[in-house]
């Protein structure tokens, strides 16, 4: 029961922050709301006994990524909101309507989702979220996760090169 209460509180925070992010005209406010949302997600991860991911969520997302966002917003001096025009109000209506349909459909596929079999006990689950367990799974030579991990390293290399190429002044 306490878990359920926590879920609802976090859900309200999370959804509220997300909505604020979408509705805010000022990008700084959006970014800060998103940080709140990410932090709430991190708490979810911890309650789901995914401690490692929860920590990473705080460090990488709420920390690095969002700081980068804010940094760019400040750097480009984009703090002032973009003046919204009446143009595109149809677009907004359509977007919300389609979003509603999408949500409905996802609900249908999600709410009726029953776990075949029963969930494992919290104690077992607890052991799966540690750094050790995650590491053992990731680097297990009998599981397929090693390769995508290596591929990701190439991806990060591309991102580094790309960031340099894009932002370096023309020589």
């Amino acid at each position, binding site marked *: 029961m306490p*878990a*359920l209460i926590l*879920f609802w509180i976090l859900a309200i925070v*999370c*959804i509220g922050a*997300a*909505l604020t*992010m*979408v509705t805010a005209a000022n*990008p700084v406010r*959006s970014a800060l709301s998103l940080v709140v*949302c*990410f932090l709430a*997600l991190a708490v*979810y*991860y911890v309650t*789901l*006994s*995914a401690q*490692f*991911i929860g920590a*990473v969520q705080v460090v*990488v*997302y709420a920390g690095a*990524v969002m700081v*980068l*966002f804010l940094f*760019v*917003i400040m750097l*480009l001096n984009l703090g002032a909101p*973009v003046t*919204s025009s009446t143009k*595109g109000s149809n*677009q*907004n209506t359509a*977007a*919300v309507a389609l*979003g509603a349909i*999408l*949500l409905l459909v*996802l609900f249908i596929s*999600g*709410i*009726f*989702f029953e*776990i075949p079999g029963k969930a*494992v006990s*919290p104690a077992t689950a607890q052991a*799966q*979220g540690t750094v050790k367990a*995650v590491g*053992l*799974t990731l680097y297990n030579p009998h599981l397929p996760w090693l390769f995508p991990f290596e591929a990701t390293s190439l*991806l*990060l290399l*591309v991102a*580094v090169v*790309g960031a340099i190429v*894009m*932002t370096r002044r023309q020589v």
Partner: protein
Amino acid sequence: MVPVSYYLSLSAVLFTIGVVGVLVKRNPIQVFMCIELMLNAANLTFIALGRFYGTSVGEMYVIFALAVAAAEVSVGLGIIVTIFRTRQSIDLDETALLKS
């Protein structure tokens, strides 16, 4: 114990908010934030599913998704910075040289 469908529904809500946000925002940075929200919604699903079967599989997906998101951020913000340098504006509706 919270049923898994709760988490799935919550992630559906977050995903939808992200999708709608992409459609209504004009500032590319905000649009991009909405996309980040979409990715995070997926992450929540992964973790919830993995946890309820007592495996670390969910974490695997999230690690890759995280790395991808980080890569996208660095490149995306790089593109936005360059655009700002030449145009002094990043309004999506003003950047429409290419159309029809």
